């Protein structure tokens, strides 16, 4: 069954995409670790971490594209799921610090000692084991998305209303995580990580491995998304996107489909957050800011909504531009550019980079195939029937 799903879901561009990601995922760590420092082809460690960040953003963008591009759910709160996954990983990393913290408390993280916590809050139990944290990375965002979606989709909150309440959700979480007595480090968040699974998070090898893992996660996430959108389920999702009421009248339980894909997407965002935290070295409530979630949506819009590859590409392109511009003399103008990007992409490039490319490429390809077929047919002396429009 699975191989069949895989072959069906992989067209040529998807294969190219996966090959590129795999190549990047292998070559960059190798070049970082094997080549001598200063060599022309050696990728410095800080770049490995930076690219790792982009890959995590690409996973987040994929998760948004899955629901926005294929199901028409514009979530302005996906940053919340990303941050929750990140916090789950951050909690594990905090517990790994052990007695090496500033206050040397073997159980309580530094900020808890500082804030006079008598003991570990109950929701921190279990985070000293990796597998528990890994389960939580999926479970916490998934559960929140499930509850939220169950309420929202059942009562048919759609369109901009849904967007606004997802934004309210992440805003509420932002306010909550800023509180010191919430037990997640308040304003400062979680940082000063030391080890992950016994390896030093700062070490080159660990960073390279994390980068490889991120690329692997991107590949898996992409395959899952492809599998979903090319399946029968995916067809229903697209139907929901284009004509929700009609789909409902045809007898589909629209809310169940939406709930499934929303929860899946939240879990993916959580994984992206979990991979993001050890590479960046900090997680704080700022990740919940509504602006972050909206920015993630624009990555998808830039790359091309409903193309998956475009989402990942958009995340990398926009973030690379952000890195370049915010670190150079153009820094004060970055927000102008980001704002203009929002406006211009929606006005002039509604299909995004990949969508526009496809719109230009597909007719040309079809024309060429048709021309080939025609010339072949002429040679055979057989008239060509028109292609069946249903295909």
């Amino acid at each position: 069954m699975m191989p069949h799903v895989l072959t069906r879901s992989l067209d040529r561009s998807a294969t190219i995409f996966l090959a590129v990601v795999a190549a990047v995922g292998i070559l960059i760590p190798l070049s970082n670790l094997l080549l001598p420092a200063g060599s022309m082809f050696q990728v410095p460690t800080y770049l490995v971490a930076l690219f790792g960040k982009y890959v995590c953003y690409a996973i987040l963008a994929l998760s948004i594209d899955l629901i926005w591009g294929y199901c028409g759910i514009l979530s302005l709160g996906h940053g919340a799921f990303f941050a929750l996954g990140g916090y789950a990983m951050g909690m594990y990393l905090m517990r790994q610090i052990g007695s090496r913290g500033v206050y040397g408390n073997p159980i309580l993280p530094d900020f808890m000692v500082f804030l006079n916590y008598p003991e570990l809050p109950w929701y921190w139990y279990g985070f000293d084991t990796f597998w528990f944290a890994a389960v939580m990375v999926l479970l916490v965002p998934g559960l929140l998305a499930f509850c939220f979606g169950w309420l929202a989709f059942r009562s048919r909150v759609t369109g901009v209303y849904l967007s606004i309440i997802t934004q309210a959700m992440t805003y509420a979480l932002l306010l909550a995580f800023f509180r010191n007595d919430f037990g997640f480090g308040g304003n400062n968040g979680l940082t000063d990580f030391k080890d992950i699974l016994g390896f030093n998070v700062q070490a080159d090898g660990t960073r390279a491995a994390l980068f490889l893992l991120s690329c692997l996660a991107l590949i898996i996430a992409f395959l899952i998304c492809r599998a979903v959108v090319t399946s029968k389920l995916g067809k229903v999702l697209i139907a929901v996107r284009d004509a929700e009421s009609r789909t409902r009248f045809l007898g589909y339980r629209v809310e169940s489909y939406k709930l499934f894909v929303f929860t899946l997407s939240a879990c993916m965002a959580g994984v992206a957050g979990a991979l993001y935290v050890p590479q960046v070295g900090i997680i704080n409530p700022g990740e919940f800011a509504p602006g972050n979630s909206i920015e993630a949506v624009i990555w998808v819009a830039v790359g091309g909504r409903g193309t998956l590859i475009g989402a990942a590409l958009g995340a990398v392109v926009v973030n690379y531009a952000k890195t370049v511009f915010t670190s150079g003399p153009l820094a004060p103008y970055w927000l102008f550019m980001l704002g203009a990007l929002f406006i211009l992409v929606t006005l002039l490039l509604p299909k995004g980079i990949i969508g526009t490319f496809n719109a230009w490429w597909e007719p040309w390809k079809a024309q060429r195939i048709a021309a080939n077929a025609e010339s072949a047919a002429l040679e055979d002396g057989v008239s060509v029937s028109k292609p069946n429009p249903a295909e």
Partner: protein
Amino acid sequence: MFANVLDRFRALVLSLLLIAAVASPALAGPFEDAIGKFANDEFSDTDEAIGAVATSGNPLAFAIISALQDGRLMADPDSKKVYVTQPDGKIIDAATGAAVEKLPDGAAAVRLNNRLRRSVEAALGGLTLLSPDPAKRIQAAQSVFKTHDEAMLPLVDEALKKETVNAAKLAFTEARAAILLFKPDATDGEKLEAIATIKARGDQEAMALLTGLTGDQPAAIASAAANAKAAIQRSLALWSMVQNAWYGLSLGSVLLLAAIGLAITFGVMGVINMAHGEMVMIGAYVTFVVQETIRTSFPHLFDYSLLMAVPLAFIVAGLIGILIERSIIRFLYGRPLETLLATWGLSLVLQQAVRTMFGPTNREVGNPSWMSGAFELGQVTITYNRLWILCFTLAVFAILLAMLRYTALGLEMRAVTQNRRMAASMGIATSRVDALTFGLGSGIAGIAGVALSQIDNVSPNLGQSYIIDSFMVVVFGGVGNLWGTLVGAFTLGIANKFLEPVAGAVLGKIAILVLIILFIQKRPRGLFALKGRAVEA
């Protein structure tokens, strides 16, 4: 009048007689006698002198006693003369008030010990009870109410007799009641009356006073005190409700002001304008520029700065709004999610533009004199700026409502909203109406900025802090319904302020957000949804 003169004459004759009889060189009358005692350098004499001076009613008494407190009362043991060094360095004779060139060589400050310091304080309290300024008298009476010192009773009685101002009279009556309540030899009748007076006062201090009453009271008084305490508790709870309701109204008016423009652009036109908050911010910056111009060129007009800023902010924000509609939003009608993203981008651009022009820090916008200060209503303090903002908000709301109902533009707006194609067929220039509607919504946001500049920091981030709240208000109240926005804003404001004391400011806000999210599940189209037959609105 005549009797008064006669009195004085009699006093004069008497003092003359006394002078003749005692043949003392300079001292005459109880006041002068008392002053002389300061020079004896004996604590017991000083104490007597304090009491005598305090009750003498002499206009110099206050100056003398306060000089004593500060160590500025100088006594010459040789001549038995006493001088007051005033804070500005001038020296006067304590007995006559005449200016003196310099102190005699032997003069030294009159010494105090702790017991005397207490009598000095009590005497000062008593003296301010007789101060010519009613506000000072009331303040003194309040402090007597708190200390309920038995020794003050005669002074309070005297002050009460003389008092003509009603508020001061009440304060004295309450102070007297407090003293009587704690006076061991007061009759039960007096005490019951005192309890009734204190109960009528009914604030936190009355409560504290009654709580301080010791247990060994007669049963009648103890039960009266308990009843009074319960009554005060009820009234305090009531007042704190009123206080919360006022804060809620105030917050609600701010929310309404911020949301009212959005109710036009989002509610009536269906355009998700994420740059709405930036229109508010632009209005606030217009206020800043107006005030800056006035400060540098026409300082005497400062009190009118807001009146000038309101129309200017409306015009500036409205024009920017029309520009936005013509250049961006009109291409995106019918694509709400894209509109959302484009306007979000626009908000980033506007923020950054303002940041570049005015700098990233807070700019100072002042309150005109008629908006600063506060007054008391019962036990609730009401600040003028909050009150004005409430009135202003309601006025803006009323004008907007009237405009939509009674003007030609309002009619066209409603027509286009309800059925665009039919309106176009009837000859309405729909795209012009779109632009004007959006301009109106933006202009109102600009006006909101003028008002919000009075209570919030004017910074490039001003708008962002209101955008989510504004959307919540509009969605909660029901899209396309201005009354819904009004009810939504005040409901959210009051609910927030009633939750705050229970849950704390941040948790209260989170609770409100969660409640709205749950509420939208229940009523996806808000409190006052427009009734329609469309499957998908």
